[in-house]
Structure formats: C-alpha cells, structure tokens
C-alpha cells in the first residue's frame, strides 16, 4: 500500500469554493479547488489506492495528477504508511514582546527620545515603520535612526516622498550607516519600479501614487499575501493587523494604528504601561480572521494582512476590510472602490479623495 504524507508545515485552508495550500517553510502558496483539497484531506487518512476506490475509476487520472503535482512541489512524499511520527504542526503563537511592531508618522516637531519611546523600545519591539507623508529633512531622519543603535529592534521600514536629490547612492549610504533599515518605500515617484541597494539586500520600492495621509493604508492585495510561520500561526489566534501593534500619529497621539480614530494618550504625558493596561487598546487584537464576516469563508484568510481601520460596515468591528476586492464566493477580484455597496462606507471614512 502506498500513502501520501503531506509535510506538516504545508497547511490547507479551505474557503467557500477554493482552498489555499500554504507552504509555510518555502513561503509559497497554491490556490486549489476545494475538490482537490478534499482529496488531499482524504489522503491524510487513507492510502492512495483507497482514495482511488473512494472517488471511483473516473477520477483516477485526476487524483494521480494531484499527487504528482504535490510531489513536484515537494509538499510531501510517498511511503508505505502514513508516518505517525511526523506529528502535526503546533499552531500556537507567542512573542516575547508586548508590542512587536510600531508605526511612527514622523513629525519634525516631536521628540522621539523621551521616556515613552525608551520604555516602548525596551519592550524588544521587532519592527518599526517610519512614515513621512511630506518632504522631510534627511538629517532629522538620521537623528531618529540614531536612537535605535544598540537596541534589539531588528527591522526598520522607511516611507519617504520622492525627491530628485534623494538618489540611490545617498540611500545606500544611509542604510549602510543604519543597517536596521531593511526596506524603503518611496512614494509620489515619477514611475513604479523596484531597485535594490546595500549589495542587493535592501529593496527600494518606487511607488507612483501619493501616500500623503494614513487614508492610503489598509488595502488588501494579492501581492501583500504572505505564507509564513509567523503570520499563519498568529492569524489562528489574533488579529494580524493590530495584535501587539502600536502607532504614534503625526501629532504624537498613541493609537492602535494611525488610521483608527481612538487615541490612548500622548507621548509626552502617557506611559507605555498605561496604554498596555488599557482594555480598549487591546480590543482589536483578538479579532481573528475566522470570525470576520466574509473573511471567514475566504481561503486567503491566514496569509492576509487584514485591516480593522477601514471596514465595509463602520459600525461593525467584525465586518470585512473595506479595501478588499476579493469575493471568496465567486473567486474573483474587482476594484473595491467601484463597488456600489461600498460607497457609503467610502463616504463615511472620507476616502473619496484618495480613490479618484
């Protein structure tokens, strides 16, 4: 008897009509019909022959095809048994920091060296995004980057407006001096293109649209999907957009995300502890994709970045992201901004300007 053993880090996520087979180790995913997914699930309990018998002779060729696809992508292997010692992947999630990611809407008039920031980065924050919507003096950015030397922060993403003087050699020099800067997004650029600096290790994305406010955020796009252990496991238990995330808006107010209206104090007056102890600050963190309307039927739900700031029904915390154009019931993408059912929410958030 032959059996097909699927590797434990290849996880199947079923949607309304399609499924996603997420290879969490190789960081790839495969969009497959639910029929194929059902065969795969059957194979996790039965031999290949039993599977053929179950689905009938008519399907033998199709099933053989599925298995050779899985083998060719190295998602599993054939053996004379289902190896019981190959245990399922534990999908629990935990981190050693109360805040793992921070967004700063940069403002030259705010001091980023105060107690609040010291306390915040002492929590072992892993990733930081520094957003500049408008032209900013690079020396001021350097001063801010200097703060993180010697901290355990791993990753900084810089979002800057395009400037002709801000050429690649200057950026290369910057990231070599501050190696925590691992990626750059240059908005309002003359053209869309991808460049690499620091010997090809740091991507610089030139983006032709303007990012001149946080209204531009929250878009759900297929190229933002990520199939990896961190996101997939976190998504089983927490909200991947807001769990353990903190933002400081351009006026120094502390928020879950710059795009959300609620603030939990000001960097000059509030302590990080107070923010963390505030129940309201934690309320989005536990909203799982499995609980969100429509998303819970979507096969992309555990590779998705989600958005809780702009949702289809602004009165419902459990409604799907407004800026998502995917329909898991028809498996088609449409332009969300043109969807007539979304127009009232678009107006409610005042997004008309940015979707023109």
């Amino acid at each position, binding site marked *: 008897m032959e059996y097909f053993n699927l590797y434990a880090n290849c996880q199947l996520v079923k949607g309304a009509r399609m499924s996603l087979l997420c290879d969490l*180790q190789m960081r790839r995913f495969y969009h497959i019909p639910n029929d194929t997914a059902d065969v795969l699930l059957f194979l996790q309990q039965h031999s290949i022959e039993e599977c053929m018998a179950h689905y009938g002779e008519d399907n033998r060729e199709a099933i053989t095809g599925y298995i050779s696809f899985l083998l060719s992508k190295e998602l599993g292997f054939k053996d004379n048994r289902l190896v019981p*010692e190959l245990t399922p992947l*534990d999908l629990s999630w935990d981190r050693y920091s109360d805040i793992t990611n921070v967004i700063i809407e940069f403002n030259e008039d705010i001091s980023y060296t105060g107690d609040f920031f010291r306390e915040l980065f002492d929590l072992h924050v892993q990733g930081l995004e520094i957003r500049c919507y408008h032209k900013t003096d690079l020396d001021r950015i350097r001063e801010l980057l200097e703060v993180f030397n010697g901290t355990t922060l791993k990753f900084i993403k810089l979002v800057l407006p395009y400037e002709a003087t801000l050429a690649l050699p200057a950026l290369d020099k910057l990231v070599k001096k501050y190696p925590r800067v691992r990626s750059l997004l240059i908005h309002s650029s003359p053209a869309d293109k991808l460049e690499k600096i620091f010997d090809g290790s740091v991507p610089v994305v030139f983006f032709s649209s303007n990012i001149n406010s946080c209204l531009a955020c929250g878009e759900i796009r297929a190229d933002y999907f990520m199939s990896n*252990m961190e996101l997939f496991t976190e998504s089983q238990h927490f909200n991947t957009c807001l769990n353990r995330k903190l933002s400081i808006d351009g006026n120094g107010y502390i928020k879950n995300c710059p795009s959300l209206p609620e603030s939990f104090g000001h960097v000059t007056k509030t302590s990080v502890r107070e923010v963390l102890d505030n129940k309201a600050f934690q309320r989005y963190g536990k909203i799982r994709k499995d609980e969100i309307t429509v998303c819970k039927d979507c096969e992309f739900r555990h590779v998705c970045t989600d958005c809780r700031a702009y949702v289809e029904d602004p009165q419902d915390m459990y409604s799907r992201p407004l800026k998502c154009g995917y329909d898991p019931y028809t498996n088609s993408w449409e332009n969300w901004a043109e969807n007539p059912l979304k127009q009232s929410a678009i107006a409610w958030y005042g997004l008309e300007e940015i979707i023109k």
Partner: protein
Amino acid sequence: MSQQILILSQSHLEGTTDHVCQWLGHLGIPYLRMNGEDLFDMQHLGDLPGNDEIAVVWYRRKISSFPVKYSLKQADFQTQYTLKRFLADEFNGLHSLLFYTIDRQKWLNDPITEDNLNKLHVLALARKCGISTPFTEVVTTRAAIAQLLENYHEIIVKPVSECIFLEDTAGGQYKMLTKTIHQNNLQLVPEKFFPSLVQEKITKKFEIRTFYLDGECHSMAIFSQNNRKTKDDFRNYDNQRPNRTVPYKLPAALEFKLGQLMKLLCFRTGSIDLMVDMQGNYHFLEINPEGQFGMVSYPCNYYLERKVAQLLSKSISHEKEIYQ
C-alpha cells in the same frame, strides 16, 4: 542577595542567547549574562560571578572573537598560528575557572564534560544504553578500509573531534565535511594515514535533530534525500531547494534511552543527531551539548527559547523554596 541565573555567552552572532534573554525579560525574570568578551574589561578576579550569587548556569558559548587584535611585529603565518593557539589557551584558562568556582550541580550541563566531550566515548555510552549506532572504527591503513568494504558497501570518514574550517595564505576558505569511501575511490586513500574515524555508511531516509531539554525530546525530521547535493551531510546547505524540516516524535522507548544517555553525561540540554535508514531503524550519531536549537525551534514552532527561559526560571524559584 537573592541568587540569580548566569548565562555564559558571547557578545556577537548569538541570536539564540539573545532570544532566550528576551524571553527572560518578557517573563520578568532577572538574569546575569556574561559574554566572554566581558573578560577583556575585568579589573580583578573578584569581578567574576561567585558561587554564592548564582543559582543556575546556562553555558551557551565561550566567546565570539577577542575584542582586541594581537599580532607579531614581523608577520609570519606559522608563528601567528602558534600565537593564536596560545591566546586561546590563555583565555580558556581564565574562562574555565568558573567551572571550578561555581558548584558543578548548578550547571545545566556539566561544563567539564561538555568542554571535553569525546565522540568515541559517547558512541560507546549510547550502545551501553541500548541505542543503536552505526558500526564505528578507527583505522590507520588502506588495507583496513578495504577489509571493512567487504562487509559494508560504503563507509564514511569523519573527524574524531570536530570539523574544522581551513584558511590558506591567499584567504581561501575550505570546510571539512563527511566523505564517502567505496571500492571505486579506495585507490585514492593513502596506504598508511593518521588514525581516522570510519563509520558504516547508512542510506538514510531522513535525518533527525533532537533538542533534549530536561527530560523532554523535541525532534525534527530533516528530509534531504531527494537532494543529491546534500546526501552526505545536510550542512552543505542548498538555498534553492532547502531541506524540508518538520516536527517529529521519536518512539517513547528511544526517548527514554536518550534520556538515560544524557543523564550519564550529566547534561540537561543538548542537540542529538540521529538517522533513520530505509527500513525505518534509528541510528544515533552524536550529541552537541551546546548545539543550535534555533534551527529546530523555528521550523517546528516549538518555542524552545521560551522553554529554556522557563527551565532557568524554575531553577531560581526552586532555589528560593530551599532557602526560605
């Protein structure tokens, strides 16, 4: 003064220690981390951590590199090497003082055994515990190898000690890895050679890396067979087609025997290498008491760094109970 956790590590390139320290910080458990590099700033012996203040020691690493460079007035490749060895011995002489000043039972792993672990002895101990090991011999002649090849289709040769990295005067780097000997390349083997460890070559279905932690085995299967480039040793990393690494559970009887072996060695943590042959039999290869466990922890989502932090914290709360 309450007793605390001592972590011996290095200041650079030690993500695993950083990770465990971050967990300790998050769990609110105080600890003292001493990097080998710190010894270059000590003023007197009294700066070293003393027995009374320490409840438990996790000896992870000695040092990354000396923070100061010493060189000869007149550069000479040979003498430079001798000097390097001398300085390493000098450093070890100071560092290992802690092995004697801090009670041995406070160390997660007995430090003297750890620093002097003998591969051949460990294999013998494993067999004593009823764990199967590949046939192993130390030989000095081609004739002896030829004789072995009558019983074994292929044999491998690997160091009795550890693999080394070699550097030539031009800066070229060479790494030593396991090599296979069979009838077709036997003639390349010198007639007489330095005592060398040879082992029967086992055709593997997959490899297993087990991180043993205080009585529990956290195992990972490594599938590299369909990848010709890594057939002998999965350290020949292949970035295009990395090996598949997935969680694995060893049979209870084998876990029990591995536990016995670790106890004989006075180790509470360590990385154990095993191999599974085409028939499904397990073969023990070796133990790396300070072995990497990040490479098991992350792919299997085991949170081993948190478990190590919790074990260390258990040791100090246990101490508190005794002294209360």
